[in-house]
């Protein structure tokens, strides 16, 4: 499939250091949103999210993106650690702040989704092996029965 032209454009804009140039938080958030939506590499999204969080502290969206991305690229191993790191980057501590709770919910959902996907994949693997075994058994039985017996 053809790549969306926006992606190439976004790379160019990023190369010129746009996050600094974006003075309004809405504009910075929109840029971040587009970066996520257009499937920019997670490393690049992470840098953008960090920059936006630093420049506009107190905005939930960049923080959640930061946490999600930290978690997705597995730099921190678990959603919980990703969430703490994201909060620390924002200068907030603990789960009691509304922003902290929001981030915790978002990351818990992410963790749940990931666990479910992994469980589904494990079940699929098991089912595929069982299917292969059944097919091999059936093919073996047919072959055995089709071969000429002793009486022939």
């Amino acid at each position: 499939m053809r790549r969306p032209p926006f992606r190439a454009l976004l790379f160019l804009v990023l190369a010129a250091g746009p996050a600094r140039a974006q003075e309004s938080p809405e504009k910075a958030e929109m840029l971040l949103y587009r970066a996520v939506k257009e499937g920019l590499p997670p490393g690049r999204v992470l840098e953008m999210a960090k920059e936006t969080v630093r420049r506009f502290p107190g905005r939930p969206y960049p923080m959640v993106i930061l946490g999600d991305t930290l978690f997705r690229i597995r730099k921190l191993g678990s959603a919980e650690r990703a969430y703490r790191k994201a909060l620390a980057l924002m200068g907030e501590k603990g789960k009691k702040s509304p922003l902290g709770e929001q981030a915790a919910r978002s990351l818990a959902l992410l963790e749940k989704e990931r666990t479910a996907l992994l469980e589904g994949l494990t079940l699929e693997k098991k089912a595929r092996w069982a299917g292969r075994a059944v097919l091999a058994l059936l093919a073996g039985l047919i072959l055995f029965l089709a071969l000429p017996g002793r009486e022939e």
Partner: protein
Amino acid sequence: MALEITAVRLLAPWFGTSVQAWTNIIGLVLGALAAGYLLGGRLADRAHRPRPGIPLLAGGVLSAASPLLLPPLARLFVDPSLPLESALGAMAAASLPVSALLFGPAVFLLGMVPPFLVKAWAAGDPGRVGRASGMVYALGTLGALAGTFLPTWWLVPALGSRWTLFLSGAVLVLAGALLEAGSGPGKRRRTASLLLFLLAAGLMAGTGFTLPSAQVAPRPQDAKVLFQKESPYQFVRVLEKEEEGRTWRVLALNEGLDSFHSVLGLGMRGNTGGRYYDALCLAALLCAEPLQKGGRVLSIGSAGGTCLRLLEENFGPGLRLEGVEIDPACVKAGRRFLDLPPEAKIHQGVDGRVFTRCARGPYRFIVVDAYSSQIYIPFQLATLEFFREVKRILEPGGVVAVNVADPSREGLLARPLARTLAKAFGKALLAPIPESRNFLLAARKGAPPDPRRFESPSRPPPLARLGKALSRRGEWTILGPGKGPWFRDDWCPLEEATWKAYLKALEEALQ
């Protein structure tokens, strides 16, 4: 054939009726039959007087007992707590080993019968082998004919798949008993036959008593079953559960797990809490003539009537509501439990494409939300030819809105579909629906759709929040037809595109 057809229905609540499930079951039945024919042929050659009644008795008992054996086997591969997209792959793959263990032995035994019968009817005379084998094939094929039509159109809708299998098993046991009774002289032989028949009858009686308590489908997580029915098309359930501090009713089909085809939040009017139905309803604002003034509205794939209900609640009772739903059981569930408006005229038992071709219109607003096997849009409702037919029955300035379930961020399925829609209408709107895995596609007859209307003052208050979110620049795209290829009746790799979208989403989530 009865076993094969009913097997698909029996497995549907656990593994669905996807192409993979059908293929696995048909392939398994054919393989087991082949092995049975081979062994039956060998045994028939060895036996002086073959006894076809014995495999018939055993096969009958096994097929009748299969509904009892299904739940423990299926639980090895199905986890009802998983969301549908996580479990899809496992369900498709598991239909093979489960159907092999469940139906393989019975079909294998039944496959042994024809060679026995040929030998018995030829009675040692090589000159009669042709007539005997012709008779066996003819009777077998006539039986298969009855086994194809009766379960689909009468037995499963009337009795359910469990009792259909039990009945088929009972017929086989009876046939086996008759063949054994007439299998020839000899006191010892007659006593053995009688004992075998008594054993089979005892097992059948035990199965019959246990069958009503057999589990039909995976138990839903934290939900109450209000209604369930096996229709000629699928296994239909209405579930009630508590979520987000509210009671929700959902229409779930076959192996749906957490996915649903209609929804009602009790005490909620005009929206479904941001689910994709709200976005479909919001697309009515794109019409040239406001829907508040009335007009005809059509919902293709109306299921339990969520879209029709929302349209009536948001745009007033002046609308003439019509729906097309192939499965009457969904309509019945909708009327009883999901507040499907009583005045809505639902064309039941008709395919959406056939209806569109025959409909006269003109409609002001058409919603297309039809799915089969959970994630697939029926291909005949996604082609250029279909969208041209939709355009024909729309009034000038009328709008069509399509729901596309596509979890990939790039819209691997939604984009080519939007381009196909644009090819028919000139331009199409593509908007990912916030907090869902769905996209909204819309097109207007005569002019491109204007997404700024989502925030127009005439928008109904229950949809205001979503309207504001969707009207933002960057949330939507207006697409032209591009260079193609577009989905057509003779080339529509919709299932492939759907799988690609799901695999891409999986890859992204595990990145």
